[in-house]
């Protein structure tokens, strides 16, 4: 122990901090921590369609301190918008660039005018066609007409009208495939609009159709449901939905979500809300989900670390991922809550197997100082999540198991007193009511 060579010192400390048994005996290797900046090109290439533009704009908005990154994001957004037909977004992006990217990235009035004129023409054509179909009362054509309208509005950024058009096709759907198509389109537009109540209702509608669902659609629906739950802060349900997503999803839902996101959202939500059993069964042993986790090795490592109680490295990974996750359009406002919950669970899990814990060691394991740790533990104890008491003088945490017998006696006596008191009040009230009733009936006669 004492007087050994220095190389074994830190190793022993490592073993002491580790609160669990290493399942495999290989030396814990320190993998690459991705604390480097988000590679915007790689990130953007995962998505397609409107969500790519929105994500880039969000990144630009969030990285206003980092000008290089902001400009990169805005540049890519501009290029993407030019490929589409949304002049409103074009104007927005130009405003944000403020000419910092040079003349090629300024307001292209000619382009805007051409696009707008084309849009007018197309709209007229679509309207005429739709009216023709409506007079002819051909259901399928009317449905296609409304669909085209929906697509048109969506491409031009008029999301409300797009949604209304898609919903109108409902009356003209004849096969279940049509209904599925309608649901998927409505879901897409609702997600873009941020109205997740619609999302949930259309997903339920789609899931009720028994036969027309192929695995890809099922996977898409699960993702959308997961997103809806995430937005409404139901993290456990969100985790379950993401974990149920099959690997058939692949890149098919790039207009909404990338498989990396499924892994990240699912992994973090699961870690924050599942208990140990569920974590092992549904996440670690889940073969389907493993495909997703391969895409984000940090999340995989962090979940494994948590399960095997290497809290320091788990929290390290979390810290490193935080900066990049804050730039994610769906996760950013839930990140603090999730991180808080994961940290609490780590603290609770650490103290669970012990009768007494030295706070200095625990502070080292969590890479924090004793005073801060004491405050955190105090909050957890007051919340009744940790059954323990702190010996502040010696800085030790002692587990405390309530004495059932005494507690029962106390509760019994208390219940007796309460019964006494309540029944007496009740009898008194009965008497008053009877008296009043008698008074009233005597007045009547």
């Amino acid at each position, binding site marked *: 122990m004492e007087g050994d060579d220095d190389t074994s010192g830190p190793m022993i400390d490592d073993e002491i901090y580790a609160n669990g048994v290493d399942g495999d005996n290989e030396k814990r290797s320190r993998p690459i921590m991705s604390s480097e900046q988000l590679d915007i090109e790689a990130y953007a290439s995962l998505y397609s369609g409107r969500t790519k533009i929105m994500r880039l704009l969000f990144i630009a908005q969030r990285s206003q301190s980092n000008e290089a990154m902001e400009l990169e994001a805005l540049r890519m957004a501009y290029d993407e918008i030019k490929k589409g037909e949304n002049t409103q977004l074009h104007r927005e992006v130009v405003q944000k660039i403020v000419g910092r990217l040079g003349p090629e990235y300024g307001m292209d009035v000619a382009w805007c005018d051409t696009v707008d004129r084309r849009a007018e023409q197309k709209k007229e054509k679509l309207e005429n066609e739709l009216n023709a179909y409506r007079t002819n009362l051909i259901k399928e054509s009317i449905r296609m007409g409304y669909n085209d309208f929906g697509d048109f509005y969506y491409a031009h950024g008029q999301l409300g009208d797009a949604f209304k058009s898609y919903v109108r096709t409902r009356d003209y759907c004849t096969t279940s495939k049509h209904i599925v198509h309608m649901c998927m389109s409505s879901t897409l537009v609702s997600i873009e609009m941020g109205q997740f109540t619609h999302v949930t209702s259309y997903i339920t509608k789609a899931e009720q159709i028994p036969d027309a669902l192929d695995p890809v659609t099922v996977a898409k629906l699960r993702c959308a449901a997961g997103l809806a739950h995430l937005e409404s802060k139901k993290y456990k349900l969100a985790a379950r939905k993401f974990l149920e997503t099959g690997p058939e999803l692949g890149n098919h839902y790039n207009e909404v979500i990338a498989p990396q996101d499924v892994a990240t959202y699912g992994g973090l939500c699961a870690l924050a809300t599942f208990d140990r059993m569920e974590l092992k069964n549904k996440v670690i042993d889940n073969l389907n989900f493993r495909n997703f986790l391969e895409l984000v090795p940090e999340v995989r490592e962090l979940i494994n670390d948590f399960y095997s109680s290497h809290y320091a490295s788990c929290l390290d990974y979390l810290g490193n991922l935080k900066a990049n996750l804050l730039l994610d359009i769906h996760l950013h406002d839930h990140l603090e809550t999730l991180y808080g919950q994961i940290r609490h669970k780590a603290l609770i899990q650490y103290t669970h197997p012990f009768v007494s814990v030295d706070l200095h060691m625990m502070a080292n394991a969590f890479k924090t100082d004793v005073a801060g740790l004491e405050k955190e533990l105090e909050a957890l104890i007051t919340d009744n999540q940790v059954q323990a008491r*702190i010996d502040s003088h010696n800085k030790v945490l002692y587990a405390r198991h309530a004495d059932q017998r005494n507690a029962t006696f106390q509760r019994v006596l208390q219940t007796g007193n309460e019964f006494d008191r309540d029944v007496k009040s009740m009898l008194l009230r009965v*008497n008053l009511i009877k008296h009043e009733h008698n008074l009233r009936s005597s007045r009547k006669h």
Partner: protein
Amino acid sequence: MEPVQALVANIQGLSSSGDIPHLHALLKQAQESLYAESTRLLPVLDQLDPAKHSLGYLYILEACSSGSISKEQASALVLPIARFINSCAAEQIRLQPDKFISVCKRFKDQVMLLEAPLRGVAPMLTAIRKIQASSEHLTSLHPEFLLLCLLSKSYKAGYSILDEDIFEVDQPRDLFLYCYYGGMICIGQKRFRKALELLHNVVTSPMTVVNAIAVEAYKKHILVSLIHNWNFSTSLPKYTSSVAQRNLKNFSQPYIELANCYVSGKIVDLEALVDKYREKYENDNNLGLVKQVISSMYKRNIQRLTQTYLTLSLQDIANSVQLNSAKEAEMHVLRMIEDGEIFATINQKDGMVRFLEDPEQYKTCHMIEHIDSSIQRIMALSRKLTAIDENISTDPLFMSKTGRERQRFDFDDFDGVPQKFII
């Protein structure tokens, strides 16, 4: 004077022969003439013996004390009334209880007029005992008695009567006043649990209109609940009357704010709030209670520390409870240990406090007896409850009411209520 003399002779004669009903009838007839002679009746009393001629004495006494009384008259009357109450015969009094009650009330007025409430305490207690049908019966004299106790600060006497449970009430107003004054007496004696019970009864009583007594009682209820339970729930129980549920809170806004601030746990905010509403609390005479609320907040915060820590330094206690110094913290902890609110030992050398578990092991004979007697008491209460339930189910008024509201499905339906009771 003649009819009065004749009356006196009658009283003496009939009382000694035991013909009380006849006497009662005669007295009722003579009522008017008595009232006419009210100012000159005092010397007549000397001819009668309160113990034997109680009913007659009562009538004359009542006539004497009717109308407005000056201070000298009051001092003249107080002594005879007191003597009468002490020595009168209970059966004769019970024939005319309302006269007796009005005499006692006048007695209380006179005593208060003379500004000597203490003189009235003992006689009132005797009066209550004599007129009560049973110890569970609340008379109109109970609140008067408690008021005298409060004014004369003889809390112990008042408390002795509060120990009895009340189940029968004549007038709801009596109950409200009784519980309110009773609550105040218990607060004076620092028996906050009983005070809370009594005030709770006022607040949750059935009432059709919100009355001032209920409002004041609610204010005190909030404060006492904070002092005793360290907690307060703004929602009234389901059985509270709807008028109370809707309106009581509007009248006690400063108190509800105080309760909300208390729950948040910051002493500084609480004191600021108290300063803001100081005048309102003073007007309601609740400032003393409010000060007790503030000091109970320290206790609550220290108590919460016992749940989390095994040992804690005095300085840390002072910091987390927002006291000024470790010395003050020591004083507070010491007082709490003495009052039995927490279990701890103070180590002055280290400046450390060690919190201990409740040493009660529930193994002593004393505890077994306590549990046994509680069981007996609750069984008796249960039996009483069943008896009352049976009484009500067989009460004809109740039967007729349920009979009327019963649904009719079919003529041949099984009839739960006999035909006779359907009105």
